């Protein structure tokens, strides 16, 4: 089943991922033949851009680091200008299984933003302690805002439909945690329909999730602050504009 892949762009923000990005891009092409892949090289100092290009992806080479949010905003802008109506964000470290993309796109037919949720029963990804509590509280608040049950609001595996792409190309937050928390708040308050689909998450190719209590506390504080600030900001009106040709 590949009805909408022409309109779909896989966007991968990548920072110094030369060891994994090539394999991830190849895997995407293997599992989703014919789909377009855009790697946004977020100011890498290694060969991420050329490795991705060699693997067959289009590469947007940012001159300096903008953070995941900034890289994604560039990706949305590219999608909008080049006639893609759906954007699927996939991490370049191999954490997300491209085989799950069709499930996200399927759900996207009746929603504007679909999250691939890690804790919704599939896979063995687990987070404990304060970080887990923070995620639970965030999930509660954001579920209320979106009037839809969301359990994994910090997931970077997400698909955006035409309305969300138009919104995000202009308003995707480029701040810390903006790409996960604030983007959901913006989308929910603009009236986007947000859903989640359970996905299995693979262990990261490099590095382990931190369980340092101080870091967790800092994360909790910053996440709470990001949530508060995004709630205080003026609502963004969603323009029902035609899909660009």
């Amino acid at each position, binding site marked *: 089943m590949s009805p909408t892949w022409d309109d779909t762009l896989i966007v991968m923000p990548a920072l110094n991922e030369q060891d994994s990005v090539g394999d991830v891009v190849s895997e995407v092409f293997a599992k989703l033949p014919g789909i377009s892949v855009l790697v946004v090289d977020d100011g890498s100092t290694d060969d991420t851009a050329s490795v991705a290009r060699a693997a067959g992806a289009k590469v947007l080479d940012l001159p*300096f680091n903008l953070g995941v949010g900034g890289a994604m905003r560039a990706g949305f802008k590219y999608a909008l200008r080049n006639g893609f109506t759906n954007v699927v964000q996939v991490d370049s470290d191999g954490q997300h299984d491209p085989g799950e993309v069709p499930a996200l796109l399927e759900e996207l037919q009746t929603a504007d933003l679909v999250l691939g949720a890690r804790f919704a029963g599939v896979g063995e990804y687990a987070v404990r302690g304060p970080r887990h509590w923070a995620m639970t509280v965030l999930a509660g608040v954001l579920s209320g805002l979106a009037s839809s049950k969301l359990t994994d609001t910090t997931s970077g595996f997400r698909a955006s439909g035409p309305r969300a792409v138009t919104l995000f190309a202009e308003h995707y937050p*480029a701040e810390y945690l903006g790409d996960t928390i604030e983007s959901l708040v913006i989308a929910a308050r603009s009236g986007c329909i947000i859903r989640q689909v359970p996905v299995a998450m693979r262990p990261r190719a490099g590095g382990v999730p931190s369980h340092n209590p101080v870091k967790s506390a800092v994360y909790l504080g910053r996440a709470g602050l990001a949530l508060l600030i995004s709630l205080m900001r003026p609502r963004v009106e969603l323009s029902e504009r035609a899909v660009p040709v």
Partner: protein
Amino acid sequence: MSLSSYIFGILAALLTLTVVIEMLRRRRLRERHVVWWLIFGVLVLIVAVFPSSLVWAANLVGITVPINLVFFVSIIILFLVSLQQSAEATRLENKTRILAEETAMLEMRIRKLESERSRET
């Protein structure tokens, strides 16, 4: 107050104003960044020339020791200036981010055009 401290006050105020206006004149400062410094300089000059105006103003707002009014107003103005700097930094960051996006997209187009052209020839 002695005559020397009176003159010292006036000279300090004039120096502040001269530096601000000179930088504005040489386009080293844009006028929208200079407003608070100009207000600051003029206030200092008024107080330096007419020290009794400070006592009058302090009485007006109920401050017993007039010098505290000087500190208070100075802090407020410095606070506003630094706030304006932060806002300006945010604005500039946004602009550079947009420029980065645009150059990346242009770079991509050029690369595509060049590869198409090298294939043609």
